[in-house]
């Protein structure tokens, strides 16, 4: 087997107020693999994901695409991780969709013309060319999610990280997103409460409880073992 794109060993993190959030996480994600992260609110899912982009720094060994995460490698690592945040409004901070998508390339040393060209290209791929000059405030939740994804894909990341991607989406929007995700070749890590969605986009699931990985296996088996279903 080739080198895992995400390799986490013994990750610990304690909030500034002293509450432990992660108590020893070991996790590997293979290239092209999709894994769902299940678990209760406050079990450490988001905290774990934020570590992958170096937005929170805990103790432990973290390698992304073979690069160990440190102050010096921070920008390389962030280039490999495409992070899609739960609230698209946090992510779409520029005045228009096009400017937002161009933000990443522009701030990684690409010249403005090339940044714009790539932004146009990715927007067309995701079928949202008609939104290019719109302000994010006026978009629907599904359109926002696509725009946010465009801003991440334009960086050509190796891994995509999704935090609760189905929040605010109506059922057709969730279907769209599931189809879109399945078609993307990158390795994916998807934190979600929706087992049905998880099953559509991933084969494997890990279950977070109290800052640890309490279970790891096929989505169905993990969901059954932790009674993680509606009804």
């Amino acid at each position, binding site marked *: 087997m080739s080198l895992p794109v995400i390799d986490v060993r013994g990750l610990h993190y304690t909030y500034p107020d002293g509450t432990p959030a992660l108590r020893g996480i070991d996790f590997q994600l293979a290239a092209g693999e999709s894994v769902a992260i299940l678990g209760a609110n406050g079990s450490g899912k988001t905290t774990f994901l934020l570590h992958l982009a170096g937005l929170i720094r805990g103790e432990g060994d973290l390698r992304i695409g073979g690069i160990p995460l440190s102050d010096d490698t921070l920008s390389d690592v962030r280039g490999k991780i495409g992070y899609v945040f739960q609230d698209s409004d946090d992510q779409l901070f520029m*005045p228009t969709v096009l400017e937002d998508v161009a933000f990443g390339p522009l701030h990684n040393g690409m010249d403005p013309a090339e940044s714009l060209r790539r932004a146009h290209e990715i927007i067309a791929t995701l079928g949202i060319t008609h939104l290019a000059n719109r302000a994010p*405030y006026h978009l629907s939740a599904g359109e926002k999610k696509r725009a946010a994804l465009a801003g991440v894909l334009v960086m050509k990341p190796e891994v995509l990280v999704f935090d609760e991607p189905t929040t605010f989406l109506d059922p057709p929007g969730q279907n769209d997103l599931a189809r879109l995700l399945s078609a993307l070749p990158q390795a994916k890590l998807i934190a979600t409460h929706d087992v049905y969605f998880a099953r559509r986009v991933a084969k494997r699931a890990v279950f977070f409880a109290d800052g640890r990985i309490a279970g790891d296996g096929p989505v169905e088996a993990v969901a059954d073992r932790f009674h993680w279903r509606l009804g």
Partner: protein
Amino acid sequence: MGHSLRLDEWARGASRLHRLDARAKLIAVLLFLIAVSTTPPAAPLALLPIAALFAVALWLSALPAAELLLRTAIVLPFPAFFALISWLQNGNAASASALVGRSYLSALAVALLMGVTPLPEILRALRALGAPAVLVMVLQSLVRYLQLVVDHALRMRRAALCRDAGALPRRNRQSLWHRASGALAVLFGRSYARAEGVHHAMLARGFRGDFVSLHPAAFTTRDWLFLAGSSLAIAAARLAPQVAL
């Protein structure tokens, strides 16, 4: 809020003025404002040629003229107040009406600018004309999150009203005061959390603390012609009364 939304809606039009570069329009408006500001303090008639120029621009913009004139009239109370004082004190009606005229005409020019130019373009033009990147970025995120924060405030107020349903209309003033400050503190906290999320999203996409801006497209011949033409017209309109006298 309604006024700015209407301007925003107009700004998406496609008249000859809409299609010009925002920098050209911004500079033309500044020249216009200077021309207005330098008219003699007690000669309201000197404003007429400049007002005529504004009328031409308004016609070119194809915006609903009456509505623009009416909406912008909200700026009138302030100059009207001082005009009244000056009139009562000196009995000088000419300088009083010139004061109101200058204020109204200046506000109209800015309203017209915003009616033919989307705000994001204005902000990019500001950056291209040399405004500090940090200030422009703050302006951008302020505009971006203004409506979201205001929406949040309105939702909080609705929730508070729901809880009050059936309560006595006249409430203890102290508790109202207490609740208003509490609500503002919660809104403050939400805004802080929002900023935190936005900051994370920026860092995750490679932001390292220095801004790079997409500059507006290059000035076209049309923009140069507009700038030259409007400058000349403004100068002529400003100087005409003096030459005629």
